[in-house]
């Protein structure tokens, strides 16, 4: 009952005086302001970018101003729905705290002194620096990192043209382990889950109701509405856990649970023999490998009673093939999550839930459909802009991707181990990195070991950041490039194919709000031209680019603008095995064996681990806590802590701790506490909650910002990555759940 805890100060008259000021305050405004509900003028179909899910949106524009954003009703998977963050778009668009002009550092790194410059000065500065560095240290000493996306084509062209092999996506901080697992099992990453039709869903930490992807979140809701069972493995009580059966598993022990499932399914003969026989290789080796991974054993490892493990495995198998053991999404919990994700997919294959409704499926983009005669007619592939070939790099990548017989053999050079950049800057191994171009990425908050990241920044000859805010990374940069927001720019068509092909458009809803900001395509085109690399950007403007892209698919820009999304008219969701459980998967599987490799030849070559091997990660001893993190529905990773409306909803994070542990430590809800990893400390506020294991503490990710220019978010909350070491996992992935911390009263 919130009324009870009112501000005591009001008691003796302050209430009155506050009202007094309020009362007079209104007078000055009175006639100018009215709370009329808005009746909108025009609707522009585009796509959201408050996170990288790019949900289709309908932007309501009134008198040249974006007044509201809704989901694009033309996309049935999204049904006109967007999340809280997507709804908050206008708040970012019109935020006066956005960066408005290019800036060049004048003071020491990190003391935040910049001078505003013209774009031409900024380009010139970057061009000169890059060429100097290239001459001195070679093009390979230039690293690029960005959040994976269509901007990469433009952004990376600069680095590639300078002869650098060192371009990175953020994937190593995100789904890297899952992607590599899919790659080495199916020969492709392009696999998704059909939650909407599932009858049984087990989450291995996947948190659909906070880690939101609108189509997925809605699909899971739909499944639950149709009576599907949801089981959630998570050391803390996530919103998702609150909607199903919560299994508070010991962190970092999930592989034991998954292996035990396989063990039970084999002992009780609950798996799909035909599927295994027809489509997979290595089952016998797998059976052998998990022989001793009994429920008893798993109970000790995971802290989940064997009865539960057995019951759930039986229920799961009984629901086959409409049963999904989810393969997860974000940053790895442990260094070898790669094998966790592999094991998860192997168990899935044991229930034969591939290419059937309610299971997993390969995305049905143009490239795949053209191999199916009866489907090929529905779609033609998008085109691209021709580029002259790039100079071949004189050295290999710093993260060793592509080197046979090493882990680098199996993780994609397109993504790479982004955590390696700071290491190579500081250790100069395998060779020094001198320049770092950062686009739409904030390593300080997003990559592990924030203070090591700062050290690295300080050692650089050139750090360039392109963002919409003066982020923590931008704050340490030599050049800051202000991009306009997604509501003010075109982008290449997004191919968001699922069970049917889907193209999504992004187009400006309004002209530039801050006239000196620019869209990335223009920034890198102009920078490229300044550097004499114009040939790599062979298009006049984005209308031209999009037209070239759409033409081969037989589509026009105007067509796309009409609805914002395009899917082949009349095409039904396409599951290869829907009607014929014996249908060939040769058109889907992209590996040499044309089999689903339970035993992966590549993994064997690269890691000497053709099958998942269980590593028992230590559990925290008394007095220490495993530190885990997660998404919150109203914020995006490093992106939104300073967006007015979202900051208002949640200005800071707290450290979750079980009341029993609080009592042991003499702490109580709301206390200001210090979290310590031994090496590093963060100050924060304690939240005492039954919703977490007593041996675990948790905080929402994305807080603890150090850039004073993020005036709303600055200095608020805990930066999780400040406490985590920059460990690079088996397939180049970050590691976020194996750090132990102590907590004390501040």
């Amino acid at each position, binding site marked *: 009952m919130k009324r009870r805890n009112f501000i005591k100060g009001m008691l003796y008259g302050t209430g009155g005086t506050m009202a007094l000021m309020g009362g007079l305050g*209104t007078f000055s405004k009175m006639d100018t302001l009215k709370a009329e509900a808005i009746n909108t003028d025009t609707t522009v179909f585009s796509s959201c970018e408050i996170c990288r899910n790019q949900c289709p949106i309908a932007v309501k524009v009134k008198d040249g101003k974006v007044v509201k954003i809704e989901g694009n009703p033309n996309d049935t998977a999204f049904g006109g729905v967007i999340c809280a963050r997507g709804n908050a778009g206008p708040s970012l668009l019109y935020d006066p705290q956005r960066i408005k002009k290019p800036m060049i550092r004048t003071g020491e790194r990190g003391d935040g002194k910049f001078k505003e410059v013209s774009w031409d000065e900024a380009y010139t500065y970057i061009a000169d620096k890059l060429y100097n560095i290239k001459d001195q240290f070679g093009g390979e000493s230039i690293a690029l990192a960005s959040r994976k996306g269509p901007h990469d084509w433009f952004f990376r062209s600069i680095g590639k043209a300078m002869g650098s092999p060192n371009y990175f996506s953020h994937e190593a901080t995100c789904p890297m382990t899952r992607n590599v697992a899919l790659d080495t099992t199916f020969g492709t990453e392009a696999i998704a889950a059909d939650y909407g039709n599932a009858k049984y869903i087990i989450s291995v930490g996947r948190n659909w109701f906070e880690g939101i992807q609108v189509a997925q979140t809605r699909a899971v809701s739909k499944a639950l509405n149709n009576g599907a069972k949801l089981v959630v493995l998570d050391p803390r009580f996530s919103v998702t856990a609150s909607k199903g059966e919560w299994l508070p598993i010991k962190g970092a022990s999930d592989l034991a649970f998954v292996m035990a499932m396989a063990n039970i399914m084999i002992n009780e003969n609950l798996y799909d023999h035909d599927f295994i026989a027809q489509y997979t290789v290595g089952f016998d080796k797998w059976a052998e490998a998990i022989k001793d991974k009994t429920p008893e054993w798993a109970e000790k490892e995971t802290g989940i009673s064997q009865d539960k493990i057995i019951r759930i495995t039986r229920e799961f198998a009984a629901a086959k093939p409409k049963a999904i053991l989810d393969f997860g999404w974000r940053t790895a919990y442990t260094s070898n999550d790669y094998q966790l994700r592999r094991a998860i997919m192997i168990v899935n294959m044991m229930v034969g839930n591939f290419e059937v409704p309610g299971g997993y499926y390969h995305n049905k983009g143009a490239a795949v459909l053209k191999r199916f005669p009866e489907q090929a007619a529905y779609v033609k592939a998008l085109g691209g802009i021709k580029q002259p070939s790039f100079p071949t790099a004189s050295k290999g990548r710093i993260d060793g991707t592509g080197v046979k017989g090493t882990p680098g053999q199996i993780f994609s050079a397109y993504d790479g181990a982004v955590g390696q950049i700071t290491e190579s800057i500081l250790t100069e191994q395998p060779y020094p990195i001198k320049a770092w171009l950062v686009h739409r990425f904030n390593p300080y908050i997003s990559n592990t070991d924030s203070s090591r990241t700062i050290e690295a920044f300080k050692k650089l000859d050139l750090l360039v950041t392109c963002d919409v805010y003066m982020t923590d990374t931008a704050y340490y940069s030599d050049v800051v490039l202000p991009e306009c927001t997604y509501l003010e720019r075109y982008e290449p068509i997004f191919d968001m194919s699922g069970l049917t092909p889907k193209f999504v458009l992004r187009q400006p809803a309004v002209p530039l709000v801050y006239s000196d900001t620019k869209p990335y395509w223009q920034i890198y085109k102009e920078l490229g031209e300044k550097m004499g690399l114009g040939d790599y950007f062979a298009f006049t403007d984005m209308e031209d680019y999009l037209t070239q892209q759409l033409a081969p698919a037989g589509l026009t820009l105007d067509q796309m603008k009409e609805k914002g999304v395009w899917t082949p008219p009349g095409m039904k969701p396409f599951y290869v095995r829907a009607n014929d459980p014996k249908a060939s998967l040769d058109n889907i599987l992209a590996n040499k064996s044309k089999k689903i490799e339970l035993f992966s030849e590549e993994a064997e070559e690269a890691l000497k681990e053709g099958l998942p091997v269980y590593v028992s990660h230590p559990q925290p001893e008394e007095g220490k806590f495993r530190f885990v993190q997660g998404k919150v529905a109203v914020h995006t990773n490093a992106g939104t802590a300073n967006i007015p409306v979202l900051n208002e909803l*949640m200005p800071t994070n707290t450290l979750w701790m079980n009341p029993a542990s609080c009592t042991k430590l003499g702490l109580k809800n709301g206390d200001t506490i210090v979290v310590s990893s031994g090496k590093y400390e963060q100050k924060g506020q304690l939240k005492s909650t039954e919703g977490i294991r007593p041996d675990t503490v948790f905080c929402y990710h994305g807080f603890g910002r150090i850039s004073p220019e993020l005036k709303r978010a600055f200095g608020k909350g805990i930066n999780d990555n400040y406490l985590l070491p920059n460990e690079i996992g088996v397939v180049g992935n970050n590691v976020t759940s194996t750090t132990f911390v102590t907590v004390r009263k501040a």
Partner: protein
Amino acid sequence: MDVTWGIGAEEIAWGGMIAIYLFLAGVAGGAFLTASLTDLFNKNQYSKVIRSGAYIAPLTIIFGLLLLVVDLGKPFSFWKLLLYVNFKSVMSIGVFIISVFSALSVVYGFLVWQKSTAERKLRQTSANAQVAATTSSKGLQALRKPVAAVGVLFSIGTATYTGFLLSAITTNNFWHTAFLGLESIPFLPILFLVSATSTGLAATLIGAVKCCDLTPYKKIDMVLIILEIILISILYLTADPIFFTGSMATLFWLGVVTVGLIVPLFLSIYGVSKHKNIVLPVCGMVVIGGLCLRYFVVFTGQLF
């Protein structure tokens, strides 16, 4: 705190301003009663009391209304309260009662002032001037007692209205408390009428300290205090205990009960029996107690 896992403190609608307003309206009512009744039923020996009450009433009610207006979200639209009427709304009705009362109290105050100045002149000046003075004011002075009489009704109306305003909120378990559990009889109007009369009387006496012997008034005040003690005890027995133990407990036990009732009661018993000029401390405390009471009621009703 964040919006998903729990939200911070909410502000309450009516704060100190309204509490003070209700208090002042009460004082005004009580003061007017004291003055007008004295004026109507008593020979002029208490003219100082009449003056004190007649001046305090308009001053306090006008200041009270000022606070009320300032507390509005749209202070400069206060006139719409007179333009749009809702007879289902106690506030709407109250607005009219109070307006009339304010007008009357101003007129009455003026008449009393006129009378007293006339009399002062009369004491200083010669016989024929005296005649002039009295005749000149005869016309208006004829209105004084009628105004006082009508004012009595409206001052009672005003005092009780401050109670009805709150008790009319049927969704408020505290404000809506019924008298001895009789649904039809709301409690607050009665309590506020008594409290108003006693605080008004007390304020008036403060203004009239250096007057003649005030013993009869002090006796009345004592009776009122005792009445109020009885009422408060009833409230305490009928209403939910949380109201008296929660965050408002101190204000209640210290301000309302101790300072406002118990101590003044003993002091005045002592004062009436022995000591003559113990008026100030007693009345002072009664007034403070009245203010505490309004604070207590206004906030408690919104906090629990």
